[in-house]
Structures are given as C-alpha cells and as structure tokens.
C-alpha cells in the first residue's frame, strides 16, 4: 500500500513538472516567433572558443567590438547582438546552430578551433554570412579574418630585449599550433634582433583556458631567471599575470614583467602601486569584427575573402600605457623597428623554420 502512495506522489510531481515545462515552452515559442516577424534588421552574433567571453583577451575583445557595433545601431545583448559561450569543443557546433536558428544574419567564429565546425555549418546554410577569426576558410559565404601577429610580436620582442636585465625572457603559448607559432616566431625574432645573446625560453600550456598551468609555467620561468614573459595564451595568461603579481607583492623591488596579448592588459598587471604589465601586443579583433559587421550590413560582405590586418591597418600595435616601465627610449627603438617592418626591410618570420633562418642570418 505504502508503495502505491509513493508512486502516485511521484507520478504527480513528474506530471506537474512536465506540465510546467510544456507551458513554458509554448510561451517561449510564440515569443520568438513574434521577434522573428518584427525585426528585419541586420543582426550579428559570435561563438566564443573555450577561453570564454571574459578571457580578458581575444574573445573579450571580439565581444567588445560587437557591442560597439551594436551600440552604433541601437542593439543590446539578446536584441540584435549576442554571444554563445563554449565550454568545450563539443559545444561549438550546437552553439553555431543555435545562433543560426535564432536567425542572426552574420555569425562570427572566434578562434581557429572553430574552423572545422564553421566550415561544415557554412556549407549547410549557404544563405547565411559567417566570419572566422584567426583562420582561413575557403567558402563563398565565409569571410576569413587574420592578423599579422608576428609583426606585433616582433615589436614587443624588441621591447622585452630592451627591458631585460637577466638576458633571459620567456614565451608562454596557448596551444602549440601554426597560429601561436606566429607569435612565438615574431617574438624570438624581435628579441634576437636587438641582442642575439638573449635566451628565450618557450613553453606551451596546451590550453587557452588553464590559468593554473599558466601560473606554474610562469613560476618556473621567473625562478629560472627570466624577467620578462610574453604570453599568448588567452585565458591561460591570467595565471601568468597572477604569478608575476604574487612575486611583485612579496618583493616590490624585484623587476619582473609580463607582456600582454590581444588587448591592452595594463589593468591585469596592477598590484598595489606597481604594475607588472610592460606592454601588450595589441590585436584589434574588435576593429576587425566591427569592420566586417558594418560591411556585411551595407551589403558588401567580403565573403570568400581573406582579410589580413597588420601594422599598416593599425590593427596590430603595442601598448604604451605603463609609462614608468616602457620608457621613451624603448618606445623610440620599437618605433624604429616598426618603420623597418613597414618599409619592408625586415621580413618577420612566421614559423619555427623561418625563425631559425632569421636568427642564423643575424
């Protein structure tokens, strides 16, 4: 008898739950139908990679660009612009499809990790516009946005070489991949161009979202005598900043520096009255995102094209926010090298093989 009571109770609860869920879904359905009917405007959304939208770096910069674009056209999150955050690789495809079904006109895939999935989706929905950042997809409805990160990395490499006192600097990469190798190559070339005797220690965390690993690697590098670390590892880099700030807090006289990436990471380096951010390699993903959104809105979407943003387009640069650290002398030198790159006197290497050649020829 008791059992029967139990069962009745749970059947009741379960059916109640289903009922509620059903009501809810009806509401939601009609709601989104209305929205589709009302708005005929051009909308855009993005899918982050696993770094997440608050990675203080590249995803965040993209979202800032999209928000900026939204502001110009009176959109806010959920109304005309949106992002879908991916927690792991398996989320990319559902996230892309989710945004497609919500009828966004232009969808950005942020990061080379989304390449395969975006390629598939673009083939399936050829009436939609897509854009991929940091990789190239050959499809008529996909714009490929790439940056000359090696040029910017070269410049911060020069700054690192000027700043180091131990003649040892470090590089922390996200995933060992052709893209991050561009950062590494440019950085090494920049450092060695100033002083070939400076040692560059290179480590990869194998993740863009593992601050714990970033912290351990940074800890090792600093204790091995490196005093400047350039990170190019998205969210992992927060661990690098963390370690540098910890060391700085314990010993404010110690000169250790971090070079940020993608955005000006000055704020990330603030600890008390000190700031450990020497400079940042700025990659204006926000500019590119805004740019492409506007072009698409105006009807000349650069589908099938490879858009390369570099020093020339002011989409790559370095930050001079930390005036105490990055002195006039350093800035002048970096500018000199920048001129040389712009004039074509230097061909900044992009791969490890090219770097080896470049360094040997110095």
């Amino acid at each position: 008898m008791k059992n029967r009571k139990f069962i009745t109770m749970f059947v009741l609860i379960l059916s109640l739950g289903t009922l509620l869920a059903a009501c809810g879904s009806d509401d939601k359905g009609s709601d989104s139908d209305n929205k589709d009917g009302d708005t005929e405007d051009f909308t855009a959304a993005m899918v982050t990679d696993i770094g997440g939208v608050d990675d203080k770096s590249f995803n965040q910069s993209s979202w800032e660009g999209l928000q900026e674009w939204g502001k110009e056209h009176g959109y806010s999150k959920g109304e005309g612009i949106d992002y879908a955050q991916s927690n792991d690789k398996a989320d990319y495809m559902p996230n892309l499809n989710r945004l497609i079904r919500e009828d966004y006109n232009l969808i950005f895939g942020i990061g080379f990790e989304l390449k395969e999935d975006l390629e598939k989706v673009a083939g399936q929905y050829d009436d939609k516009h897509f854009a991929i950042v940091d990789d190239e997809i050959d499809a008529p409805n996909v714009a490929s946005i790439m940056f000359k990160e090696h040029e910017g990395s070269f410049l911060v490499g020069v700054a690192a070489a000027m700043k180091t006192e131990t003649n040892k600097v470090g590089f922390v990469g996200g995933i060992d991949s052709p893209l991050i190798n561009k950062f590494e190559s440019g950085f090494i070339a920049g450092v060695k161009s100033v002083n070939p005797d400076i040692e560059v220690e290179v480590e990869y965390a194998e993740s863009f979202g593992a601050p714990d690993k970033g912290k351990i690697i940074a800890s090792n590098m600093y204790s091995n005598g490196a005093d400047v670390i350039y990170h190019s590892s998205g969210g992992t880099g927060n661990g690098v900043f963390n370690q540098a700030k910890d060391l700085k807090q314990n010993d404010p006289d110690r000169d250790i520096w971090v070079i940020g990436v993608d955005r000006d990471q000055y704020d990330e380096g603030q600890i008390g009255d000190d700031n450990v951010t020497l400079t940042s390699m700025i990659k204006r993903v926000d500019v590119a995102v805004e740019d492409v959104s506007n072009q698409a809105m105006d009807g000349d979407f650069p589908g099938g094209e490879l858009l390369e943003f570099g020093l020339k387009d002011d989409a790559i640069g370095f930050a001079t926010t930390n005036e105490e650290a990055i002195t006039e002398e350093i800035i002048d030198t970096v500018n000199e090298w920048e001129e040389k790159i712009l004039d074509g006197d230097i061909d900044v290497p992009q791969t490890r093989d090219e770097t080896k050649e470049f360094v040997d020829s110095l």
Partner: protein
Amino acid sequence: MTTNRLISILIPIISVILGLIAGAIIMLISGHNPIEGYAALWNGAFGDQYTLGETIRRTTPYIFTGLAVAFAFRSGLFNIGAEGQVMVGWLAAVWVGLAVDAPMYIHLPLALITAAAAGAVWGFVPGLLKAKLGVHEVIVTIMMNYIALYSMNAIIRNVLTEKKTTTAEIHGSASLASEWLQSITYFSRMHYGILIALFAAIIMWFIIQRTSIGYELKAVGFNRHASKYAGMNVSKNIILSMVIAGAFAGLGGAMEGLGTYGTVSVMSGFTNLGFDGIAVALLGGNNAFGVVLAAILFGALKEGAGQMPTGAGVPTELVDIIIALIILFVASSYIIRWALLRFKKEGK
C-alpha cells in the same frame, strides 16, 4: 526485496527532482525566471529535430563511458580512467579510419575493434597492477589519463599530421555518420553510434546477469576473499573487468571519432566524457539500463544547458551550478535512502 528495488529506482528520480528544485531556487535568488530557464533547457534538448538529434549524439558516448565505469564498479573497481580510455579509443579509431583502405563492412568494424582494443589496453595496465601488485586502480587510472592525453597530442602533431592540430577527415567507409539521419534532423551530427551504444548496454546486461563470467565478476566485487575461498581466480577477474570496461570506453571514443567529428584534434584538456561517465554510472545505479537512462538525462542536460544563456538569459556559470547540484544530490543518495527508510518506518 521489492521495496529495496523501488527505493533504488526512486533515489535517482528524487535526486534529479531535488537538483532541479535547488537550481530553480538559485535562479530565483539571482533574479531569473526558473520556469523560463527550464523551458529553455527543455527546448535546447528536445525543442526540434536538430536539438533532438544533437541530444542523442551527446548521449551516445555517455552510454559507453557510463557502462565502462559501471562495469568495473560491479567488480568493486573504480575506473576513473574512462577519460583516457576514451581518448585512446578515439585516436585509434581515427587512425584506422585514415590509414586503412577497405570496403565498409571490413573498415568500420575494424576501426571499432581497434578502438575497443586500445581502450582495453588502457584498462589492462591498471587492472594488471591492481591484481598483481595491489596498486590502487584510482591512482593508476588517473595517471593513465594524462599519459593518454599527452601521447595523443604528440601523435596527432607528429605522426598523423605535420604539426597541425587536427587530422584529416576519415574515409567514408569507416564513418558512422549518416546523411539520412542528418537530413531528418536539420544537419545535426546524429549518427548510427546510438544503435551500437544500446547494443553494448544489452551486452553488459547479458555478461553481468546471464554468464558465469559475470557471476564471478560480481562475486569478486561483493567479497574478494570469499571469492578466492570459493576457488575463483581473483586476479584474472580484476584484469578482465578492467579490460572489458576499457573496451567500452574505447568504443565511446570511437563514437566521437567515427561519428561526431570524423577527425581527432589536439586537446587542451580532458573531454570530460569519462568523468561524466562516473556520474552517469552513479545515477544509473551501475545497472546497464539505468546507465542508458542516466546517459539520456546527461545528454539532455548538457545539450539543453547551451540554450539557457541565449534563450532565457541565465548565465552559463549558473547552468553549470545547476547541473553540478543534480550530481551532488545523486552522490548524496545515501541521505535520500536514509530519509526514505525513516519515512517508511514512521509510516508503519
């Protein structure tokens, strides 16, 4: 007996309900509408053909990893290594898919068998160490996960590709993907693997319940010393259990490699398929059919969760908390069992 059975069915159901209620309270506190949130969750998992297809796709590997953990648990072993076994299975399946050229009826089974074998080897090592040297399988399997992760990344970079992060697509003859299934589900990545997964669940049930091997495995799980006294070869059974568990997880990896992606990529961290498999096995009461149901629940929760931020404005972090709460309540099933029994006694 029947009340025991009833209770073991009730516990997971109550856990899920408690988890959902706790999630609703959290949503209320943080100023979101729980009904809207759960409606988005439901729509994200079963709203249309696409999400339904994706939910089934996501469920498929969970069934395998759930079985892998549940099977080992039946012999009293904690297989924390399903994660690594998934990865080696995935890698092996894609490797065969790329390297071999054969008609489908040879190629596909070969890829699946290789994946199962790779997973089995990954289960064999901790099984052997446990049986012969008494090394605790939890530690060994955890370490084996890391070995799998980093070896896999190295092999992808240096053997399967030239310094790239993703391999080429496997040959069509090894693929589980089906254009027909995709076309009826608006291009979801649903594939035939779900049939293999259900078949695997039946196999597990059959081995455990209907064969003398299964009887011995269970006996070892209940009482190692008594089994030995009864003349069973305990070492053999421990190893066998880990090998079969590893094979299940390896097949789970093959589902991703041959079905969902058709490729294997350098991974920055664990896939979590294996770790979630622990929760799936727990929720499913280490029973083959329970595992299938729990895997469906997990697949639906994970798939639907993605809809909550865009559909109802619930932040992703909150979704993770809600899912974690459900697992927490499942894990604390002992408390629910105690409460149920207490409730029962007082009722009498």
